[in-house]
């Protein structure tokens, strides 16, 4: 069974909504990295990461989100987080990531961030 699924769609303004479902761990971290960076490499600096169906993300995955956010910011964009599950949100809090990332609970609000 596929333990990580990443799909993307674009809104009319070119903002990418990247839906990450399942588990991001050491066995599939490169794929998560490639999926996220493929958009940044193509010049998209405005990304909403939809975590509604995210079950687990390890520290490397969180580090990749951080790096993506930094790269996006250099291009006047941002990486924002949508619907982070409560259990993962607690770990974000422990590491202070909730102070770094903008967190949203509706897609409409997340898109307004740009």
């Amino acid at each position, binding site marked *: 069974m596929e333990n990580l699924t990443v799909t993307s769609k674009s809104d009319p303004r070119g903002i990418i909504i990247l839906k990450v479902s399942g588990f991001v761990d*050491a066995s599939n971290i490169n794929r998560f990295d490639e999926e996220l960076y493929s958009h940044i490499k193509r010049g998209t600096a405005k990304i909403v990461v939809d975590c509604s169906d995210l079950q687990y993300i390890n520290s490397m995955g969180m580090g990749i989100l951080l790096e993506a956010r930094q790269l996006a910011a250099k291009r006047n964009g941002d990486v924002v987080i949508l619907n982070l599950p409560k259990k993962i949100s607690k770990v974000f809090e422990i590491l202070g990531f909730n102070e770094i990332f903008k967190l949203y609970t509706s897609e409409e609000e997340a898109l307004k961030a740009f």
Partner: protein
Amino acid sequence: MPRDHILLNFSLSSDLRELSRLRELIEKKAVLFGLKEDHVYQVISAVDEICANLIEHDPKKWGGGKIHFKLKIDRDLFELEILDRGGYFDPTKKKTEEPDLENVIKRRRGLGLVMIKKIIDEFSYSRTPEGGNLLILKKYIRDNL
């Protein structure tokens, strides 16, 4: 009458793809026992980070080796012993304070141990007489049940 603790022994081969099996196993046991989802997730995160670290640390030394676990879930304590036969590796010695985010971005490393130490209440290491590494992780379950 509800059980007052759960004991579980299991082994993991040095294959990163087995991490999902490990997380699933711990989650099932912990949830069945009645631990809160937040606590379970944090414990799973710590275990996953440690195991990924062990497996990636020096895979050549692993050969066909296994990492052995002894898990005890009590009403107020989650205790996990991790025993491996790999070369000396003491993650408790690594200096970790607040995450150095610039370094995390540059090296793509350094967040895992910070996270473990923030989540786990007690984290100890010893070298076994047989030449293995024994890690003991303890997390006290507060405001639970």
